């Protein structure tokens, strides 16, 4: 397990406190999945348990001391369906909203996480503000923050997801903890023995034969094997059963989502039609002169010239399925633009690439995507521009160009990508 150590002297003998953190591969993948489905940053809460385990002293130099292992276990995550769901632009946390999101899981919160694209591996100012408040409101002194950062090569062939677990409430030297992902590790099939240790002792042979039979059933199969296989079968059956339930729920969810989308389209259409109707009537009324000299022909022609400039049309909620045209790439920046180095164009993972020139103070163009449009689960109200826009923390440059739909030049974060070969650390990460 990864660890960071800090030594303290409590007067009774030194003890070493080691931090270890873990998250299951399934929870980790799930966060990646939810992030992939978001067209902006994604965030949520980490639920789990923090334990302290005392371990036996491990070496001569530690005789007379105990070792405490502080274990941070992330059990699962509670994704937020949209940004700003429990805080505002200034970073003020709304406890009511927080409770509504967490419900009875509030007591299991051990931290929160954020997924951002093309940004520094450090907390933004707003994130720090939010973190302090969450610490206070939730009453968790050692609240952790897991930051995911996503970067891609210029041609989008290779992508990297970096993650760091912070303990912002600790001093500078103890802030980062290694996050391990427990796994099968060694499948240990090498541990099977294909031969027995040679032994000519008759005593040995007779004793192990006589008492060893306990372990085998009449067919010569080890009883343990049957027993453990039963456990495995029962478990797999249950996995299958719950999987079926999940599948059903996914279909139901899909269906209702589609119905909701259709309703929204229908409403927009109706509104647009009635707005047109309004205008047509007004035009007609305007054409109708007080002396009733309405000329059918001219009024007819003026009616047909009604321009459709109406309320913003609800963007189509269809996912672009046709992939003959490559997905929308982001802005082309002039090659020598200084911001090209500081500000990689956000890309990949389905992002429409709408950087908003936000310095953490709020959204600029409030760009809800008008090109690639998706609806996150449970995300309501597409008409509310702000909540949907990509929000990129730590943007330094103001020289952002409005996104254009060209497919050519795509600037990644040049210095940190690995043209030939080794996955070494990007500088400054």
């Amino acid at each position, binding site marked *: 397990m990864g660890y960071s150590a800090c030594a303290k002297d409590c007067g009774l003998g030194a003890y070493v406190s080691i931090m270890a953190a873990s998250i299951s591969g399934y929870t980790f993948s799930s966060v990646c999945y939810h992030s992939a*489905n978001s067209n902006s940053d994604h965030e949520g809460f980490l639920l789990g348990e923090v334990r302290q385990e005392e371990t036996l002293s491990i070496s001569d130099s530690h005789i007379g001391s105990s070792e405490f292992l502080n274990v941070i276990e992330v059990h699962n995550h509670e994704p937020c369906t949209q940004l700003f769901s429990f805080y505002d632009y200034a970073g003020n946390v709304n406890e009511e909203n927080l409770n509504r999101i967490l419900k009875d899981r509030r007591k299991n919160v051990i931290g929160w996480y954020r997924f951002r694209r093309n940004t520094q591996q450090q907390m933004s100012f707003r994130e720090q503000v939010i973190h302090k408040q969450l610490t206070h409101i939730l009453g968790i002194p050692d609240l952790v923050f897991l930051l995911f950062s996503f970067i891609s090569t210029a041609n989008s062939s290779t992508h990297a997801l970096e993650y760091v677990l912070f303990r912002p409430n600790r001093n500078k030297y103890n802030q980062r903890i290694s996050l391990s992902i427990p796994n*099968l590790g060694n499948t*240990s099939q090498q541990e099977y023995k294909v*031969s027995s240790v040679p032994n000519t002792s008759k005593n040995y042979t007779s004793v192990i034969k006589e008492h060893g039979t306990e372990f085998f059933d009449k067919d010569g199969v080890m009883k343990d094997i049957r027993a453990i296989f039963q456990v495995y079968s029962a478990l797999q059956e249950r996995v299958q059963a719950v999987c079926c339930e999940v599948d059903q*729920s996914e279909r139901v969810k899909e269906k209702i989502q589609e119905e909701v989308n259709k309703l929204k389209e229908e*409403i927009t259409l109706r509104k647009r039609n009635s707005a047109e109707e309004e205008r047509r009537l007004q035009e007609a009324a305007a054409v109708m002169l007080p002396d009733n000299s309405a000329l059918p022909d001219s009024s007819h022609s003026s009616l047909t010239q009604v321009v459709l400039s109406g309320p913003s049309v609800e963007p189509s909620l269809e996912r672009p399925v046709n*992939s*003959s045209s490559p997905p929308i790439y982001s802005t082309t920046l002039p090659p020598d633009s200084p911001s090209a180095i500081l500000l990689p164009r956000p890309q990949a993972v389905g992002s429409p690439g709408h950087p908003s020139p936000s310095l953490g103070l709020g959204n600029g163009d409030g760009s809800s995507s008008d090109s690639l449009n998706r609806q996150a689960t449970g995300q309501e109200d597409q008409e509310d521009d702000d909540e949907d826009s990509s929000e990129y923390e730590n943007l330094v440059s103001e020289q952002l160009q409005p996104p254009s739909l060209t497919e050519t030049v795509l600037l990644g974060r040049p210095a940190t990508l690995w043209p030939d070969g080794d*996955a070494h650390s990007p500088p400054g*990460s």
Partner: protein
Amino acid sequence: MAVSAVHLESDAFLVCMNHALSTEKEEVMGLCIGEHRLADMTGRPMRVVGWYHSHPHITVWPSHVDVRTQAMYQMMDQGFVGLIFSCFIEDKNTKTGRVLYTCFQSVQAQKGSEYERIEIPIHVVPHEAIGKVCLESAVELPRILCQEEQDTYRRIHSLTHLDPITKIHNGSVFTKNLCSQMSAISGPLLQWLEDRLELNKHSIIKLQKEKERLTQELASL
């Protein structure tokens, strides 16, 4: 002709990542089911269009063997693509963990020379609901692991010259390995499924409310 881009649906991405993160001691592999899309596509049956494998603790770039394997696949299907997931990487200094993925094909630089890789753009495309096929793939993993273990054990078990102690030892190895699989894979998988079910239930309630609200709104127009 090289593939111009690969779209990986996010639920398929989820399954690949689950698989890659299942073990850090060996490479895992799987096949990608999908379809080729051309400008004037009508429906076409799904088929195997690529392969993926993991690089635990190693660089994401394909090895010479990987490039050669990919080239072999391409002989059968020019459009076959290769994906690699690199995981269990950590920068000890910054405590930064990393998961990378890349897409590639192989090309022969000159006649008779070794193959080299060409990079293929890959995009993970949002897919709000998890498809049935993906769910089934996910729950297949523990089954495959158990099967592999049984196959190995059966071969060992058929060795008749082993003394009882050795047989007991081997039986225990099987038991131990199955226990590892259950606690490392089946357990967390089951937990994730339960959490997903819970999340979906809440989403459905929310969506129902929205549907009612919208229905009313529509009726009033």
